[in-house]
């Protein structure tokens, strides 16, 4: 197989985001990277069905999402042992307070149903519009909106984010900062 440069470049350009999406779905960097690799292989095998001029990134996200749904979900989610693993495996180590926030968020995402998790990531983090996210997930725009809302509400509930928390660093962060100093 020979890749034309434009195709290769747009695949390469999408990889960082695909990984971020994959990690959000699986909670595990290694599994996410495997998922991204499978996505690329699948995409290249089916490159003829990609319509030039349309959004390559959205197309790849769709493939990754469907792979995750069809294959990875069948395997039992074995992420209970992964606490800390996500941040540990990042190349650039976020500072401690941030790490705690990420872990908390990752654990909260873990508790969401798949459909809500993917919706809130696609719209809230990947930056897709509701329409694009709906196309990626193969459902109606209204459905995506509703899932995003529920996901956001659940996340807030799980992480105890509420109106009390609108003054600067949250309690946990402050606690860590204080502890560091002592």
């Amino acid at each position, binding site marked *: 197989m020979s890749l034309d440069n434009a195709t290769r470049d747009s695949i390469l350009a999408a990889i*960082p985001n695909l990984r971020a999406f994959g990690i959000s779905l699986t909670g595990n960097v290694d599994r996410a990277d495997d998922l991204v*690799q499978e996505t*690329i292989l699948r995409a290249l095998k089916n490159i003829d069905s990609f319509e030039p001029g349309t959004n390559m990134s959205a197309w790849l996200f769709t493939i990754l999402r469907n792979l995750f749904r069809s294959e990875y979900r069948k395997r039992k989610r074995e992420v209970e042992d992964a606490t800390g693993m996500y941040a540990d495996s990042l190349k650039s180590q976020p500072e401690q307070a941030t790490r705690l926030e990420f872990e908390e968020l990752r654990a909260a995402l873990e508790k969401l*149903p798949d459909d809500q998790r993917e919706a809130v990531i696609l719209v809230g983090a990947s930056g897709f519009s*509701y329409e694009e996210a709906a196309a990626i997930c193969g459902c109606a725009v209204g459905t995506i909106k509703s899932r995003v809302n529920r996901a956001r509400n659940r996340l807030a509930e799980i992480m105890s984010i509420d109106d009390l928390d*609108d003054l600067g660093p949250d309690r946990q962060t402050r606690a860590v900062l204080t502890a560091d100093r002592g």
Partner: protein
Amino acid sequence: MRRGRDGGAQDGREGFEMTQSNDKPEKPMQRARTGDSAPSGGLSREATIKIGQQLRAMYDEVVKEGVPDRFNDLLKRLDGDDKGGGKGPHS
């Protein structure tokens, strides 16, 4: 599906923060399955923004890593498949 009641911002990223009252169940089945008791009223704007920021921060931490060698190698290898040799990424 849009009945012209929801004052703009139906699409695009900012919509993320604007649609919290749109919480109707998609299908009865779905609702039962997720066991969602439809949190009433939705979140405060601050809470919504905060969740968005945290999601993006976590996500961007990964994006910042760029493309791991593994994928550069993979694409090189795939590209080379029909150019003879095909085995092992070179250069």
